[in-house]
């Protein structure tokens, strides 16, 4: 049960009718599982098409003559180098280079961008962006949308049957197919898929059409978490926090080289210093031996019993068929294949550093 102060999804009645079990997440009452259960929901997404209500996440439209300049200041990003419809993973960093949030930024027009922020950080993100924006000629508009994700190898086909053609859209690109719609080919599962922000009435219509298709199943937050963990994707607040910088988080691939070298983003000096020093700890994949899951918070030790790091996300990977986890270890232990030990209820479980993802990404890149 969730408290009365949680926020409720606009489509909550549909989830209730579908038999969802709800739980609290980031201040929202969210569907955790549906009657199929987390295991079937997870596997269905990898085999067919999973439908997720992610309306807890926030879309911001950033527009105006200085939209590029604002985003270049707010994020380690070369916003002006993005092509129209191109999306990029980026961050809000603090002055110490720590990750305040991870975001997807999509260029909609010469001076118009869509920013998708995490639920738990949406309020802080808006405040942060508005404070920065006082020095720029820009408009920041939080959008009131239902936000749906359709993920899996049949996602494009079920959308097509529902009257939405996705043909030429490639991974990490986003467009506005209809008025007040935003659709990007992206997601949080490692599969091909789409995220669509749209007004509530249109969303009800789309959901009804999609659910007529037997290839589509509602997927709850529990499977969303196991899917993203297998895909090696970070959850802000767990795997990345204001105390971790992109270098330690093994996310430097998201920051273009010239931006690293000379970008004027917040946290640039601290990040450059961190890169120079080399991170003391690095985010890595962790594969526990055997079947016992190793979960967030578990301490890691090296072969001699010295503290070696900690687990930030962990559980069972239904597609991998074994427990999966990620966490931070001393940089000297970060090489795949290195054995460490996780302490679970007083027992040390052997864990091998593993390359990420655990299940191969199947994005539609071209």
């Amino acid at each position, binding site marked *: 049960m969730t408290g009365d102060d949680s926020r409720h999804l606009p489509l909550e009645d549909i989830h209730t009718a579908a038999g969802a079990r709800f739980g609290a997440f980031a201040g929202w009452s969210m569907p955790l*599982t549906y009657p199929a259960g*987390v295991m079937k929901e*997870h596997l269905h997404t990898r085999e067919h098409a999973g439908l997720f209500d992610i309306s807890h996440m926030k879309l911001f439209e950033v527009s105006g003559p200085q939209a590029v300049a604002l985003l270049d200041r707010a994020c380690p990003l070369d916003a002006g180098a993005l092509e129209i419809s191109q999306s990029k993973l980026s961050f809000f960093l603090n002055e110490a280079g720590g990750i305040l949030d991870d975001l997807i930024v999509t260029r909609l027009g010469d001076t118009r961008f869509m920013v998708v922020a995490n639920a738990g950080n949406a309020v802080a993100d808006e405040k942060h962006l508005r404070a920065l924006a006082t020095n720029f000629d820009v408009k920041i508009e939080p959008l009131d949308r239902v936000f749906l994700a359709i993920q899996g190898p049949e996602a494009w086909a079920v959308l097509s049957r529902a009257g939405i053609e996705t043909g030429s859209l490639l991974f990490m690109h986003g467009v506005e197919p209809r008025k007040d719609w935003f659709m990007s080919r992206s997601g949080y599962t490692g599969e091909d898929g789409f995220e669509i922000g749209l007004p509530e009435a249109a969303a009800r219509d789309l959901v009804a059409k999609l659910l007529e298709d037997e290839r589509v199943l509602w997927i709850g937050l529990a499977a969303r978490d196991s899917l993203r963990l297998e895909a090696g994707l970070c959850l802000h607040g767990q795997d990345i926090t204001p105390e971790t910088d992109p270098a330690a988080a093994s996310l430097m691939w998201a920051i273009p080289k010239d931006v690293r070298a000379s970008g004027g983003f917040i946290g640039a000096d601290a990040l450059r210093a961190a890169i120079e020093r080399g991170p003391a700890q690095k985010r890595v994949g962790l594969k526990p031996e055997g*079947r016992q*899951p190793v979960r967030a918070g578990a301490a890691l030790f090296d072969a001699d019993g010295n503290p070696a790091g900690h687990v930030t996300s962990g559980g069972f990977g239904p597609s991998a068929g074994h*427990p999966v986890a990620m966490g931070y270890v001393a940089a000297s232990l970060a090489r795949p294949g290195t054995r460490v030990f996780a302490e679970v*209820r007083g027992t040390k479980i052997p864990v091998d550093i593993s390359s990420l993802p655990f299940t191969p990404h199947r994005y539609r890149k071209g």
Partner: protein
Amino acid sequence: MAKTYFTSDHEWLRVEGGIATVGITDYAQEQLGDLVFVELPETGKKLTKGDTAVVVESVKAASDVYAPVDGEITEANGTLSSDPSLVNSAATGAGWLWKMKLADESQLAGLMDEAAYKAHIA
């Protein structure tokens, strides 16, 4: 003749000849969701009512299963090591967790029968 008891922590005990077979109820397995690992106790371990006897792990979380009465473990359901999903598919049958020799049968008096348990979860 075996008699079955239930606890407010959603366990069942089938008692016969001073030995209780213990598992979780169908209601409990539904709440937990798909189980992926069961940490079984060692035979011979002595438990006091309320001690953690078994840890069941779902995709998402680990949950303790407590000893409903005092006693000594006589057997753990080893089948669950390779197939923890038996607890989901047959919670009150093949998905039993452990057997224990009761230390004090009078403790059973404090437990529920099936009708009382059904009222408890209604």
